[in-house]
């Protein structure tokens, strides 16, 4: 499973990263997390407001810090 956290490095992006890591740890799902800071990459995925979370190529959220429960549900593919 590929998880991408999109954000140029603002405080909210850091928070999102932590939430995602927590969610992965808690759910026990194996996932590869990468941080995308390049604006061109972010824009290509169609995200206009950071932070964003992309799971297996699908944009799950943009413009807000997700909750741990939300991230877990994306990981489980719900």
């Amino acid at each position, binding site marked *: 499973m590929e998880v991408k956290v999109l954000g140029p490095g603002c405080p909210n992006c850091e928070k999102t990263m932590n939430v995602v890591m927590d969610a992965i740890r808690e759910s026990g799902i194996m996932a590869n997390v990468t941080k995308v800071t390049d*604006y061109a990459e972010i824009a*290509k995925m*169609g995200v*206009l407001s950071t932070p964003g979370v992309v799971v297996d190529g699908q944009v799950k959220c943009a413009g807000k810090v997700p909750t741990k429960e939300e991230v877990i549900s994306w990981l489980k593919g719900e």
Partner: protein
Amino acid sequence: MENLECACASEQKLKRENPKSKFFYWFWGLVLLGIWTLLYKSLLPFSQWFAFSLLALKPGSHLGEAVQFFVYDTPKVILLLTLVVFLVGIVRSYFSPERTRKILAGKRESVGNVLAALLGIVTPFCSCSAVPLFIGFVTAGIPLGVTFSFLISAPMVNEIALVLLYGLLGWKIAALYLFTGLFVAIVAGFVIGRLNLEHYIEDWVLKIRTDANVVTEDKKSFEQRIEYALQSVKDIVGKVWIYIVIGIAVGAGIHGYVPEDFMASIMGKSSWWSVPLAVIIGVPMYSNAAGIVPVVEALLGKGAALGTVLAFMMSVIALSLPEMLILRKVLKKRLIIVFASIVAMGILLVGYIFNLVI
């Protein structure tokens, strides 16, 4: 939450989905609104009691007036802000930059400029995502000028500025600010569009192709919208309250101690150079609306002209060095300079018009 369980239990049969939630939110919404109104109504007597009875300061004395102003205005503005940020949060939960882009894509320029400026008010936007937003708009085929209309209006015409202006200076000035802010955003964007500056966008940006329809819209439930609004209250009020306190403290100091009409000579109507000077000082300054409005209010009270002060405020909020540095990643220097000058000229115009009319 606990004490509501019993109130709901009897009604549970009536509701199928989310048995508690809707009632829960409406109930607490009304209770909180009641408390809010009570608090708001009692602020003035409280501030007078606090300054003149408890601290035994003399009404009319410098210190007494400054303390009363501070004790009255700080909670008043924070209360107003909380309510408005919540309501705006509900409205914003219906909008997203992705959705705004979809609306703007394929609109003609003039209509697009107006629409972009209006959407700038309600679209949730933070200047830290100015760059992905810019790329996303331009690469989806939204004209450069329309994109700029949005980028100018989004930070400048915002609920914080309007609430503060309303709370401290009354609805007329708040309305003036709203309309002139939109005017500057629309006209500046339109002019930038006419100048055909597309080749001053960094080349790599134009190579990206994005589709305005990619992002899936998430449907929010009633509860989620409330949560969203509450979260934005937490974020925004949590972030700006300190600026409001500092701003009002500075304002209170000016109120109590700077002599009446002191500002008239520097920022008054009579001096033609006061408006450009205000803009020149304002552009490199970086403050959000929360910090600047209380100062603006105090300046006005000391005889500064409305147009000059509005120009100052707009240039502080709308044009900031950090934002331009961020935009430098996608725009060539010349376009940034053109953008800043056109917006500055629009603001100058607003300043002069107000000084002339009022």
